[in-house]
C-alpha cells in the first residue's frame, strides 16, 4: 500500500468534507476554464474574422474604426471613397481580389446592417480555409448568391431572428432606426435568394445586397456637384489638373434601365448611376502574395484618396490595449478565487488534524517515518486540489457546452465546448504547487506529532 493509497483512504473516510472541499476548488477552476475558453473563442473569432483579408481600404481617418465598421459591422460607417478609386485600385497587379463594400442602410426588422457588394465577395475565403456556404432549412430550396441588383443574401442570424427565408422581401432603412426620426424607409424592395450557413462571424448578422442595387436606392447617389468638387480636390491633392476632371451626368441624363432590376417591381426605377457619383465605404483587399502587402499598403497610404489598414494588426492592437487587460484582470480575480478555495482546502485539512493525531500516531508506531506521514498529508492536499481541478476543467467545459447554443443565438459566436486553451495545461501543475503550499502546515503538524502522547490520549 503506497502513500497515495493511504491518503486516498483518509479522504474517503471524510467523504462529505472532502467532497465539499474539492467542490470549492472545482468551482474556481470551472470559472477559470470558462473565462479562458470564452476568451479564446472571442480572440479566435476576432482574429480569424480579421484575417480574412490582407488590407482594408477606406477613407482616411481612424484605422480601428474602419476595421470595426467594415469587418465587424460595429459603429457608424466612416466616410466614403469614390467608386472610381475602387476601379483604379482593382487594376493593381499586386491584388488578387478587391471587393467593394457599401454601407449605411439597415433592415427595418431587427436593424441588421445592409452591405452592398459584388458576387465575388462570396467566392473569397472569409477566414483562412473557409468559404461561404448555404444554410438549407429545406433541402428543396435552391439557394444562390446575388447576381442581380435587387437580390439579397442574408446571414444565418438574420434568417433566424426575422424568420426570413428564400423569397422573403424587405425594404432597407436609411441609417439606423434608433427612434430619432432621422431614418426613413426606402421604397426599393430586395428579394432574398440565399441564406448563408453560420460562419461564427459578424457576417451572420448582415444582409448582403448587390452593389448595383445598393447604388440604385434613392438617395445613395453622390450629388453631381459634390462628386465633381471632391474629384477636383483629389486631383489637386495628387498634383493633377483639376480641370481635366470629367463632370458627371445627372441620373436623369442616364439611360433608364429596367433590366438591371431583374424584372422585379421595386416601386422606383432608377437607372445605374454614373461611376463619378458612386461611392463605396471600404474595399477588402486580398493580395497575390503576403510579401507585397506592406508595399501596397504604403503606396495607398501615400496618396490622398484613402488609407489602407491591416485588419489583423488593428485587432491585435485593440486586444493588447483593452481586451488583454480585461482578460488579465479576470484571470487575477479567478486566481484569487482559486487561492481562496485553496485556503478552504487548508482549513479543512488543518481542522481534521486534531481528530487525526491518533491515526498519525498509530502509523508512526507501526513504523511510518515522520517524512511518510508528512507526505501522506501533502498527498491528501494534492489529491483534493488536483481532483477538484480536474472536475473543474470538466465542469467548465460542460458549462460552455450548455451555454453554447444560447451564446450562438445571441451573438453568432460558434463555440466549440471542447476546445482547450494552452493555459489549461498550466492549471493542473499550478494546482499541484498550490496544494503543496497548502499541505505544508498540516503536513508539519503530522510530522511533529508526539506519538506516545497521542497514543495515550
Amino acid at each position: 500500500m503506497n502513500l497515495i493509497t493511504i491518503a486516498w483512504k483518509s479522504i474517503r473516510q471524510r467523504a462529505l468534507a472532502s467532497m465539499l472541499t474539492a467542490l470549492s476548488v472545482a468551482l474556481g477552476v470551472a470559472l477559470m476554464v470558462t473565462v479562458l475558453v470564452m476568451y479564446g473563442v472571442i480572440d479566435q473569432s476576432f482574429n480569424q474574422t480579421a484575417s480574412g483579408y490582407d488590407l482594408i481600404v477606406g477613407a482616411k481617418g481612424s484605422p480601428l474604426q474602419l476595421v470595426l465598421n467594415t469587418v465587424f459591422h460595429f459603429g457608424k460607417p466612416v466616410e466614403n471613397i469614390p467608386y472610381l478609386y475602387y476601379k483604379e485600385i482593382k487594376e493593381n497587379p499586386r491584388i488578387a481580389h478587391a471587393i467593394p463594400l457599401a454601407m449605411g442602410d439597415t433592415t427595418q426588422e431587427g436593424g441588421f446592417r445592409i452591405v452592398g457588394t459584388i458576387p465575388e465577395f462570396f467566392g473569397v475565403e472569409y477566414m483562412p480555409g473557409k468559404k461561404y456556404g448555404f444554410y438549407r432549412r429545406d433541402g428543396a430550396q435552391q439557394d444562390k448568391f446575388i447576381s442581380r441588383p435587387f437580390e439579397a443574401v442574408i446571414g444565418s442570424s438574420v434568417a433566424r431572428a426575422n424568420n426570413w427565408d428564400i423569397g422573403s422581401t424587405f425594404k432597407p432603412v436609411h441609417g439606423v432606426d434608433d427612434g430619432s426620426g432621422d431614418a426613413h424607409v426606402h421604397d426599393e424592395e430586395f428579394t432574398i435568394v440565399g441564406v448563408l450557413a453560420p460562419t461564427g462571424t459578424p457576417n451572420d448578422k448582415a444582409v448582403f445586397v448587390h452593389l448595383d442595387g445598393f447604388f440604385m436606392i434613392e438617395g445613395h447617389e453622390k450629388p453631381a456637384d459634390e462628386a465633381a468638387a471632391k474629384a477636383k480636390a483629389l486631383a489637386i491633392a495628387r498634383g493633377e489638373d483639376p480641370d481635366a476632371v470629367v463632370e458627371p451626368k445627372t441620373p436623369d441624363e442616364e439611360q433608364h434601365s429596367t433590366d438591371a432590376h431583374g424584372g422585379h417591381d421595386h416601386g422606383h426605377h432608377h437607372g445605374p448611376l454614373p461611376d463619378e457619383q458612386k461611392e463605396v465605404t471600404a474595399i477588402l483587399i486580398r493580395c497575390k502574395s503576403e510579401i507585397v502587402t506592406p508595399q501596397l499598403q504604403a503606396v495607398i497610404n501615400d496618396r490622398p484618396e484613402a488609407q489602407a489598414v491591416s485588419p489583423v494588426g488593428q485587432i491585435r492592437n485593440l486586444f493588447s490595449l483593452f481586451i488583454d487587460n480585461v482578460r488579465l484582470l479576470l484571470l487575477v480575480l479567478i486566481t484569487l478565487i482559486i487561492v481562496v478555495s485553496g485556503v478552504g482546502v487548508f482549513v479543512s485539512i488543518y481542522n481534521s488534524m486534531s481528530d487525526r493525531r491518533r491515526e498519525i500516531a498509530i502509523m508512526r508506531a507501526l513504523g511510518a517515518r515522520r517524512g511518510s506521514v508528512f507526505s501522506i498529508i501533502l498527498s491528501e492536499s494534492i489529491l483534493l486540489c488536483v481532483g477538484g481541478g480536474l472536475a473543474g476543467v470538466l465542469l467548465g467545459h460542460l458549462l460552455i457546452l450548455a451555454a453554447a447554443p444560447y451564446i450562438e443565438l445571441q451573438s453568432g459566436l460558434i463555440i466549440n465546448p471542447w476546445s482547450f486553451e494552452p493555459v489549461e495545461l498550466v492549471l493542473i501543475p499550478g494546482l499541484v504547487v498550490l496544494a503543496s503550499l497548502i499541505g505544508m502546515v498540516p503536513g508539519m503538524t503530522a510530522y511533529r506529532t508526539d506519538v506516545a502522547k497521542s497514543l495515550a490520549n
Partner: protein
Amino acid sequence: MSLVLTGVRKSYIEPDGTKLPILDVEHFALNKGEQVVLVGESGGGKTTLLNVISGITSADAGKVEVDGYDLTAMMEAKRDRFRAERIGFVFQTFNLLDAFSALENVLLGMSFAGNSGGKSRAKELLERVGLGHRLGHRPGMLSVGEQQRVAVARSLANQPSLLLADEPTANVDVKNQETILKLIREACRENDVSLLLVTHSQDVAGQFERVEQLGEFNKPGGAK
C-alpha cells in the same frame, strides 16, 4: 539475546517544570523466543518502557538493544524502519485505522516496512486468527474481539523478532481474552518471536513461566 536494556533512564518534565523520573532500569534482558509477562502498578511506567523499547520514545540515557542493534544509537528514521521491520506492537485499544478494512490494516503495517507485495501473507495471517471471512470489513463492522485479532495479525505481518503487547486482553471479554492470548503465544512460539506482554491481570500473568514485576527492576528516582 533478543532484548537487552542497560542503564535505561527516562523522565518527563511536569507542567511546573519539575522532573518526574519514570524509568531507571539497570538491566533487563529477554532471550530469543522467550515469553515474559510484565506486571506492575498503574502509572508505574509499563507503557513508557514499551515505548522506549520500541523506539517510539527516546530514552534519556542508557542502551536499548534489540537483536544486537542499539536503538538509542540510531537516527530516528532508521529507528522507525527498524521498528516496522523487527518489532510488532499490540495495543490495549487495538489502534486499528477506521478508514481501512481488516486486510488493509494488516497491509498498512507491512507497507511501512517496505513489504508492499505481502497481500497473500496478510490474508494468511487473518485466516490464521480466524478472520479469513472478514477481510473486507472495517473495524467498525467487527466485534471487539475480532478487532484485537486483526491487531495481532498486523503485529505479526512483518515477521518481527520481538512482539510488545500492552494489555492486549484488557478490553475484551473473558472468552476472547483466552483466544487472543492463545493466538499471540502460539504465533510467537511458531515463529520464534520473543514476547514481552504487559498486563495487570493475575490470570494472564499466571499462564507465563516468567513473570517480571516492573517495580523490582525499575527504580526511578533512585528508589532502591
